[in-house]
Structure formats: structure tokens, C-alpha cells
């Protein structure tokens, strides 16, 4: 159990800079998720924390102690690899107990500890099998067992669920959370899947092109994204972005979309940005369908109806813009229908031309 601090870390491969001065902190016992599109540097960062890669500049600290030059096995950090990397020539028990065996722990003690870990991970029946004879989920659990038997201060996960099918992934997500609650290690978890990040993390570090785009609690990220990148990366389906300008008449500011419709801005003061072109961001659940005779912000034509059961996602086209709207599951709508939309003013996000959010 430990606090990890990443301070101004940079990493170059030749002339290419993959990590461009990253700083964040993971508190003791926290479940931190590094998330970002492929190539954003998240796996490199994880490997740097593990000690498998060196840094070009900056510091990695564990409980305040600089560990840049400490070899991987002395850091008290365990890692679960994306491929699991279970030794194919060893049984499950040998795989889990390998680190203890290397430390010359007596055989009886290894057996006991492997037994305990196996029980925790429901692997007791499989101890004599080879990895080749295990299912994907079982391999995943063996890989976790191999990590936790070392009683590490930190466990690193490199996209551990990416090789599993969808239903197993949901199950393993729950299992990882249970494990975290029982053992309370500090966890740094890398994924490109924002759903995994949102469901498991205490804190999310969003990375983009080698930089930290934003670092916050999941709900904070969802509610207050600081950039277009974070706004559209976090949340599924993604946030709608509408291009337009801020106009003002008398004392009330309004947003006028390029497509011609206007919404008044309640409480948001964007006077400084008047006549500038801006992006309005609004999430699918913050748009409502209303009756034809009620007051509406805009109307549009339904082009796609996706029914998920509990909810339905509707694509509404207005000119060249397409808005994704979340509605009830049993709504009677067909492609080609004209619908009236009301936008929730309190949930507006405005971004400038440089894709940064305007402070509210």
C-alpha cells in the first residue's frame, strides 16, 4: 500500500517524444485508471512505473521516495500483463508461486500461500493445470494471483480485460472491484475503454498524445470536462457538439447554432465570447423530446432509432448537424418522424476554438 507520484515525466524514443511531461498522483489504496486512445502513452507510462522502461526526465516516487533507479523487482510493484504472460511450461500453482520460489521460500510455505490465493480467486480446482488448459477468465485470475501473492504495494494492470468477451469482462470488472475492496492495494489500471474507467476508478487520468488531458474523479470528469477531448472521450454514447456563436439581445445571452436555431443561456455569462464561434456540448440524456404543441428549442427529423430495451437512442438531424438523444425504451418513434427537442440549459458545456472549456 503506497502513494505513487508521477512528476513531470518525459519519455523519448529517439526523436519521438511519447510522454510529454506528465504529472499526477495516486493516493494509498486508490484505484486509478489511465485511459486514452491507443498511442496516447498510457502503456508506456505504466511500464515506466513498473520499471520496465526508463524515463527521459522527471521522477517516479513511491511514498515520497524516488524509485527511478530501483530495479523492477525491488519496487514492491506487481504487474498483470495484457497477454497475461503465464509461463506455459508451469502449472497454475507454479505460476502463482514462482516469485516465492525465486526468493527460496520453503516449499510448504509456498504451497500454503498459493492455496490461500487460489481460494480467494476460485482457482483451487485448477492448481495442477497448465495455462493452455484454462479459459480466458481463468488465465486472467491466475495472472492476478501471481501478482497478489507478492503482497505488492502497488498492482499495475495493462488492459487486462481486452482479451475477454463482453459478458466475461463485466464479470471480471466486478471481481476486480471486490478484490480491491478486500485487499486494498494501490492500483494503476490502463485501458482504452472509458466504460472500464468509469465503472472501477476512484480517480481517472485521461491521457491524450502524451499529455494529461484531465485528472479527476469519474463523475467530476463526466460533469465538468475541461476540453472537447475529455468531453467526447468520457461518456458513452458521446457528447453532442454543436457549432455556433454566442449572441446577445438586451441583457440575455443566447447561443445561435450554425443551423439557425437559438437557445437562451440561463445563468451562463459568456459575454466575452460574443460573436466568437464556439462549441456547445450537451450529453444525450440532457436533451428531451416534447409534444408538437409545446415550446421547443429546435425541431428535427429522426434518422436512426436504436432500441436497447431500457432506453432508446435517437439520431435527430437538423440541417447538417446530427444530435443524439436518449429517450425512454418504449417510445413510439419511427425514422422520418419530426420531433421537437428541448435542451437542458444547466447541462451546457461551452468550448472555445482551441477546444478548451469556458469557465462557467
Amino acid at each position, binding site marked *: 500500500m503506497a502513494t505513487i507520484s508521477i512528476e513531470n515525466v518525459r519519455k523519448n524514443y529517439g526523436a519521438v517524444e511519447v510522454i510529454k511531461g506528465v504529472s499526477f498522483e495516486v493516493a494509498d489504496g486508490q484505484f486509478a485508471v489511465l485511459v486514452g486512445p491507443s498511442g496516447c502513452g498510457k502503456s508506456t507510462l505504466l511500464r515506466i512505473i513498473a520499471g520496465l522502461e526508463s524515463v527521459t526526465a522527471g521522477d517516479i516516487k513511491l511514498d515520497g521516495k524516488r524509485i527511478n533507479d530501483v530495479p523492477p523487482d525491488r519496487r514492491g510493484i506487481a504487474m498483470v500483463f495484457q497477454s497475461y504472460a503465464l509461463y506455459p511450461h508451469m502449472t497454475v500453482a507454479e505460476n502463482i508461486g514462482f516469485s516465492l520460489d525465486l*526468493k527460496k521460500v520453503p516449499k510448504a510455505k509456498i504451497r500454503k500461500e498459493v492455496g490461500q490465493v487460489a481460494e480467494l480467486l476460485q482457482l483451487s480446482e485448477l492448481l495442477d493445470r497448465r495455462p493452455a488448459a484454462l479459459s480466458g477468465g481463468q488465465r486472467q485470475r491466475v495472472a492476478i494471483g501471481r501478482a497478489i501473492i507478492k503482497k505488492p504495494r502497488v498492482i499495475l494492470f495493462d488492459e487486462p480485460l481486452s482479451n475477454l468477451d463482453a459478458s466475461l469482462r463485466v464479470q471480471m470488472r466486478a471481481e476486480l472491484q471486490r478484490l480491491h475492496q478486500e485487499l486494498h492495494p494501490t492500483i494503476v489500471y490502463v485501458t482504452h475503454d472509458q466504460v472500464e474507467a468509469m465503472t472501477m476508478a476512484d480517480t481517472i487520468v485521461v491521457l491524450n498524445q502524451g499529455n494529461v488531458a484531465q485528472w479527476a474523479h469519474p463523475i467530476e470528469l463526466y460533469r465538468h470536462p475541461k476540453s472537447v477531448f475529455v468531453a467526447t472521450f468520457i461518456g458513452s454514447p458521446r457528447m453532442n457538439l454543436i457549432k455556433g456563436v454566442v449572441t446577445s439581445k438586451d441583457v440575455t445571452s443566447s447561443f445561435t447554432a450554425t443551423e439557425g436555431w437559438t437557445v437562451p443561456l440561463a445563468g451562463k455569462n459568456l459575454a466575452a465570447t460574443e460573436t466568437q464561434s464556439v462549441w456547445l456540448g450537451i450529453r444525450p440524456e440532457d436533451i428531451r423530446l416534447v409534444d408538437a404543441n409545446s415550446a421547443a428549442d429546435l425541431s428535427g427529423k429522426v434518422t436512426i432509432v436504436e432500441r436497447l430495451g431500457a432506453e432508446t437512442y435517437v439520431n435527430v438531424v437538423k440541417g447538417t448537424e446530427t444530435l443524439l438523444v436518449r429517450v425512454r425504451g418504449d417510445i413510439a418513434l419511427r425514422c422520418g418522424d419530426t420531433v421537437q427537442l428541448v435542451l437542458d440549459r444547466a447541462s451546457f458545456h461551452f468550448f472555445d476554438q482551441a477546444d478548451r472549456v469556458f469557465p462557467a
Partner: protein
Amino acid sequence: MTGVHKFSRAEATAYGFLTVTLVFCLLPFVWVVLASVDPNASLFLSLPKAITADHFVKIFTAENGGRWFFNSLVTVGATTALVIVVGGMGGYALSRTNAWWKRPFLYAIILVRVLPPTALIVPLYKVMLISNGVMDALVRSIVPPDSIRSVMQIFGFVDGYLGLILVLSAMQLPLALWIIKTFFDLTPKDYEEAALMDGANVFQRIRRILVPLALPGLGAAGLLTFIGAWGDFLMPLTFISSSNLQLLPIGLFRAFQRANTIDYGYLSALALLYMLPAVVAFGLARRFLVQTFAGGIKG
């Protein structure tokens, strides 16, 4: 129509051709086996009227066959061991490096296999002769005069085990490097990194992770090396002159070359003995070939 399959003309021709080819290929083996136990063996294929072990006894008693067999096993065995160790380390390095010279190097070493060894035997002999002079001076400076000859038979570059082992290894190494390199290419780095995280030092990573993982590749390379070196004729002919260092293929060749009469029974018994280790090696290591050329690491 009946259930009996009727051959079409094309099929009959094909099977006929295959049968002739098969018999043609098998005949030498049949002859060797039959002649080796036939007291009246001759150049012509015939069923033995009686069965005898005399030819085999002759190899080990009247002739120096046991010694030839031992010499062959020592040099070829050492060659195989050396190629597995050097090829294993080199193949690993070639697989993991991103150095600019990697591709040029890999193609350059294949040249060693491409060029006919006979064409290079004279310069090679010259190089070995010079090395032998250096080794001779070195040996003279450490060992007493009366044991120089026996030491040079082991460590000499010409007419010594070491020289032959090195030459045979150099010939077999390129292929082994390619096989092992390709095998490591298919072996993810994750295993080593996982072992590193588990606290394994470099020797533990080699012994407990890399070698077990690479076993099929090492086995396949070792098998091809053994068979290649065992079947080599030119190198032992060129580099070995002492009769007590003679290798089996040379013994076999000399038996065939004898001026007055050829003892076909003895010759085929010797041929059979010469074939045996290659067949045994193939039987033992066959599965490595399959694993290496039909898949990589599973699990």
C-alpha cells in the same frame, strides 16, 4: 456397379509411377540391411541364406570401428552442444535487437550455407593451419613435451577434435541462428518481463523461463545440426589425418576404397551403424521440429 474401386487409366499410371519410385528409393536400404547380416554378401541384392553377426563383430574387433564411432559422437555431439548454446544466445539477441545491422547480418550468415564448402576449403585450411601453429606454440609452453601430441589431438585446429568441432559448428550455426531467432520472434517479451517483475535475475530468467520456452526451437536447431554434422564428409576428410582420430564416414569410405577386395557385408554393417545415430536423433527430437515449424508458444 460393385463396391470395388476401379482405377482409371490416369490413376493406374500415377500409382504405377509412385510404386516404381518407392522401390527405387527403398532398394539401397533393403540391400544394406540384408547384406549386413549375410555371410556371403555381394554387390547384388539377394536374400541371405544364413544370418550372421560377424560383420558387426569385425567392425569392433578387426577394425577400429568403435573408435571411429566414438570420434564421430564426440565431435558431432560437441558441435551440436556448441551450436545450441551459441545459437541459443545469438538467436535470442538477433530476435530482440533492433540494430541496423540485423538484416545485413542475417543475410550474410546465410551465405555461409549458400557457398559450396569445397570451394572454400583451401583458404579455410590455411586459416586453420595458422591457428594450429599458434595453438601448438601455446601448448608447448604449458605441457611437458611427451604429452604435447595427445593434447594437440584434442585442442589442435588441424588433426584435432577442437578444429573439427569449430569448423563443423561454423557450418551449422547460420541455420541454427535463423531457426532460433525465428522461434524467439514468436515468443513474446512479456514472459521475460513477467519473470523480471517476479524477481528473477538474468540467469534465472534464462534457465527457468527462456530455455524451457525455447526448447522446441533449440531442439529443432540441435537436431538439424546433429544430422548435418553427422553426415558431413569433407571436413573430417580434410582436417583429420591421424588414424586414431578418424570419423565414421571416413572409415566407411576407406572400407569401400580398399584396392583388392571389397567386403560388402562389413561395408553395409558399417553403413548401418553410421545411419543409426541420425535415425535415433530424429526419433528423439522429431516433435521439436513439428512444434517449431508448425506453431510457436501456446498458452
